[in-house]
C-alpha cells in the first residue's frame, strides 16, 4: 500500500515583486496512515508553507505531492477544493468558525459543499459529531457564546464530519490556556489512536509537539530533522534558534 502522503522535492517560491523568497527549498517527506506528526520550527522556517501545501490550500512551485496516490500539484483550484472537502479536516489557531452561526450549522458546513447529503442526514451527523467532542448540548449556541476550548472542539467536529483521512491542525492550542490545550491534545491523541486518523500538527510549542509520535523540525525552508526522538528534535530546534 502506497503511503498517504508522498512529497518529493517540493519547492515554493513567493514572488514579491523584485524579491523572490524561497519558502520551501526542496522538501521530501513520506507520511503513512495513522501517524501523529508534529511540524516544528521557528517563524519563517517554512512550516506554514509546508502545512498549506500538505493541506492542498496552496500549490507548490515545483515538485510532486501525491496524496492517496493522487497528484495534487497538477490539480485545478476546484479539484483541490474537492480534495480539501473530502480528505482533509482543518483546525486553526483562531478556530475560524463562522460567527453569528450556531455550532450545528458550522459543523454542517463541509457536508453542504460535498453535495448530495440531505438536510436531515446533515443535521444528524453534525449532532453526532458534536456529541463526540463533548458538545452535544451546545449545538444551538453561537460561537460567541462558547469558550475558546469549546470553540476549538466545534472546529474539530467540523474538521472530522466528512471523515477525512488527515486532520491538519495549525497551532491548535495557540489561543487556549494550558488546561484546555491539554484536553484538545488528548482529543487529538484519542482520534489518532482509536480511529487511526492521521494527525499533522503545526506548532512551535515543545509541550504540544511532545505528544506527537514523529517530529519534523524545519529550518530555513528545509527539513532539519525528522525523528521520533523528542530530545533530538528539541536540540535541533534550539540549535537553530
Amino acid at each position, binding site marked *: 500500500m502506497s503511503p498517504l502522503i508522498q512529497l518529493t522535492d517540493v519547492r515554493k517560491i513567493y514572488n514579491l515583486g523584485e524579491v523572490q523568497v524561497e519558502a520551501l527549498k526542496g522538501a521530501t517527506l513520506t507520511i503513512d496512515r495513522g501517524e501523529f506528526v508534529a511540524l516544528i520550527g521557528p517563524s519563517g522556517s517554512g512550516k506554514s508553507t509546508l502545512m*498549506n501545501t500538505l*493541506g492542498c*490550500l*496552496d500549490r507548490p512551485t515545483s515538485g510532486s505531492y501525491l496524496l492517496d496516490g493522487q497528484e495534487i500539484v497538477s490539480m485545478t*483550484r*476546484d479539484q483541490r*477544493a*474537492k480534495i*480539501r*472537502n*473530502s480528505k482533509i479536516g*482543518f483546525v*486553526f489557531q483562531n478556530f*475560524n*468558525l*463562522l460567527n*453569528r*452561526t450556531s455550532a450545528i*450549522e458550522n459543523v454542517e*458546513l*463541509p457536508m*453542504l*459543499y*460535498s*453535495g448530495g447529503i440531505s438536510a436531515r442526514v446533515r443535521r444528524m451527523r453534525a449532532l453526532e459529531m458534536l456529541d463526540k467532542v463533548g458538545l452535544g448540548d451546545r449545538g444551538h449556541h453561537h460561537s460567541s457564546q462558547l469558550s475558546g476550548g469549546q470553540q476549538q472542539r466545534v472546529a474539530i467536529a*467540523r*474538521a472530522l464530519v*466528512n471523515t477525512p483521512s488527515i486532520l491538519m491542525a495549525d497551532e491548535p492550542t495557540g489561543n487556549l490556556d494550558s488546561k484546555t490545550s491539554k484536553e484538545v491534545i488528548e482529543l487529538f491523541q484519542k482520534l489518532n489512536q482509536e480511529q487511526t486518523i492521521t494527525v499533522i500538527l503545526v506548532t512551535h510549542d515543545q509541550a504540544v509537539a511532545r505528544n506527537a509520535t514523529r517530529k519534523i523540525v524545519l529550518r530555513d525552508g528545509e527539513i532539519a530533522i525528522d525523528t521520533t526522538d523528542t530530545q533530538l528534535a528539541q536540540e535541533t530546534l534550539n540549535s537553530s534558534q
Partner: protein
Amino acid sequence: MRLLDSIRIALRALLKNKMRAILTILGVVIGIASVTTMVSIGQSASMLVQSQFQALGTNVIVIFPGSQRGGGVRQAPVQTLTATDSRAIAEECPAVLASTPLVGASGQVIYGNSNWSPRDMFGVGEDYPLVRNWPLQSGGFFTRREITSNAKVCVIGQTLVAKLFQTANPLNETIRVKNIPFRVIGVLAKKGASMVGDDLDDVLLMPYTTVRKRLQGSSFNSVNAIMVSAKQEDQMVEATDEITQLLLERHGISIGQSADFLVQNTTEIAAILGIVTGSLTMLLAAIAGISLIVGGVGIMNIMLVSVTERTKEIGIRMAIGARGRDILRQFLIEAVILSSIGGIIGVSLGVAMSTAATMLINYSSSGADWPIVVSIPAALGAMGFAAMVGIFFGYYPALRASRLDPIEALRYE
C-alpha cells in the same frame, strides 16, 4: 452543491447581517420606486397633454367644397358636399372615428329681453360632440330622429348661458333665432379659448337640417363643410388619404381631374404634440434610467464592501471545500434576493407614490385633472430590471469573492 442549499446559505448570510441587507434593499427600493413613480406621473402628464391637445382638435379634419373645373373654364364654387358624403366617410373610412356635416348660420338669439349674436352658429349632425371631443355639461345632444324631422332644438355653449340666462337654468327654455323658437336641450361643457384666442364657448348648435330648411329655407342638400375626427393623432395622414379616395370615387372624379373638394387637417399641431409628448417621454426615461443605475451601483458598492468584510468567511468556506463557483453562486444569489425584494417593495411604493402625487397635484392646483396612471409595463420592467441589476452588479463582487486565494482570505482580519 444543490441550488436549494445555495439559496439557504445565501438567506442565512443575509439574515446574519440584517442592517446591511436592509440598506442594500433600500437602495434598490429608491431606484425602482422612483422609476415607477416617474414613468407613471410622466404618462399621466403625457395623457393630460394629449387630451388637451385633442380638445383643441388635433385629430380633426375639415373638408370644404371646392370649385369644379370643366373644360378649362373655372366655374363658380358649387356646393358639392352633402350629408350623405359625411355619413359615407364615417362608415367607410377605417381611420375615421366620426364625421358630421356643418352648415353655417348667423343671426341674433333672443331670450326674454336679452339678445346676443353668437360668434359661431352651426347646423351640425348628431356626432358633433364626438368629432370635437366636446362633452355636454347638462342635458343631451340632438339625435338622428331630431335631425330627420328638422326639429327645432338647440344646444348652447357656456358663453350663451352667461349672456342670455345668467343664473337661470337654460334647459327646456325656448330661445328665438330669426323668430323661430328653439328649445334648449343641452349645454356644452366649457372649452375655453382656441389657440388664436377665439371664444369657443360662444356657440349655438342646431340640427343641420333645421338650419337648411327652416332658417335658410333652402331645398339644397349640400353642406358648407364636413368635419371628421381621426381615431388617433397618428392616423391623420391615413384618414386624409382614405377620405380623399372615397370622395373622389363618390364624386366620379377620375385621376388627372382636379378634386371638387379640399381636405384640410391639423397635421402641424399634431406634429408639435408629437414632439412635446416625445420629449417628455425621453426626459422621463433618462431620469428613470439614471436612478436605476444609481440603485445598481448601490448594490455593487454594498456587495463589494460585503465581500471585503467577509473575506475571512470566504476563506473558511474555501478551506473546508467550497469551490469558486459555490462562492460565486452564494454571492450572486444574495444579490438577486436583495434586488428582488427591493424590486417588489419599490414597485409597490412607486405605485402608491404616483397615485398620491397625482392626487396631490389635482388637489393643490384647482382645475388640474391629471388622470391616475399606474404604468404596468414600467412596474414589470422595473422588477425585471431589479433582478438583472442584482445579477449584473452582483456579478463582479461575486467573481472577486470566488477568485480569492484561500490562504490570503484566511489570514485576513
